[in-house]
């Protein structure tokens, strides 16, 4: 009982922090929540653009892992992927779209709201 009340009140606080109505209650962005994708988005947030290999080394990922997750982000419109040739070497570059930046911002807000809700208690 008490537990249920506490959960409900913290949810209310969450909503009030997120500043939305019931429908706009923060829903976790699963796409970003996944660790590898969160890392990709975070790394791109502080870099204008990153090449495939730079990103791979930075986050210690395998080729396959990075390309799968990067594709998911690209399909969601969070990340823009450009392929070009430097001489004969293909170079894939990623950059964060405005949409992706917004999504990361919302995710951060969400996490902050959760922490805030606990701290207020």
């Amino acid at each position, binding site marked *: 009982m008490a537990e249920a009340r506490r959960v409900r009140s913290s949810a209310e606080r969450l909503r009030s922090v997120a500043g939305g109505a019931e429908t706009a209650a923060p829903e976790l962005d699963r796409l970003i929540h996944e*660790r590898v994708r969160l890392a990709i988005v*975070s*790394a791109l947030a502080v870099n204008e653009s*990153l090449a495939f290999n730079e990103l791979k080394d930075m986050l210690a990922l395998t080729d396959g892992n990075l390309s799968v997750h990067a594709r998911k982000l690209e399909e969601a419109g969070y990340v823009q992927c450009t392929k070009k040739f430097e001489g004969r070497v293909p170079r894939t570059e990623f950059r964060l779209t405005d949409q992706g930046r917004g999504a990361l911002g919302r995710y951060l807000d969400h996490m902050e709201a959760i*922490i805030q809700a*606990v701290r207020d208690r």
Partner: protein
Amino acid sequence: MAYDRRPSKTLVRKLLYIAKHLTGGHPPRIVRTMAKIIPFRRQPEEPPPEPLHERAMDNLAFIRQTMERAGSFTAVSGWGQVVIGVTGVLAAWLASRQASPDNWLATWSVAAVVAMGIGVVTTGMKARAIGEPIRSGPGRKFVLSLAPPLVAGAVLTLVLFRAGMAGMLPGLWLLLYGAGIVGAGTNSVRVVPVMGFTSMLLGIAALLAPAGWGDAFMALGFGALHVVFGTVIARRYGG
């Protein structure tokens, strides 16, 4: 030859088989002989789920770490470097016209302070513009790795100047400044350490060259180098 109306023995057998084994009411034997699916050993109890807020904090820490690791220190202002370079060239020109060694050192000391001020102000401006906290994370590392060689340089400047070896100073400055930039630049975009190495090489060259070329080396190593690399940084890393 009369036809035998009776069903053949094999057909009877088949029918009996179907009636007996495949239409029986009881379940197939195999099911009854299967082991129970309750394990002998007790299952380890699931650890209680981490509280939501702790996971949230963990996530924020993760984002922050990734950003710090990935965040090459883009707050280094390219245009600031260009301005520093121009001051460097001006200072070299002024210093070369000073008659006394005291005035010569004073000129360069003022130039160093001015350049440092410009660097701090422009970097701070750029950091604020791109919303990067400068006192924590990469900015802190940058300053902490740049400061020791600069302090060493200042001390050695005093010592060598008193010993009457002012001719070695330009080479020493370029070498130490370059070393500081290489160290600080390991956390930064790749052009920064490259600039440090170039400065170090020029410093070594200045130490080997006749002392009279010191100001020319400074114009090159402190002036032109900053202008060139500052332009690259400004072009590629946004300002």
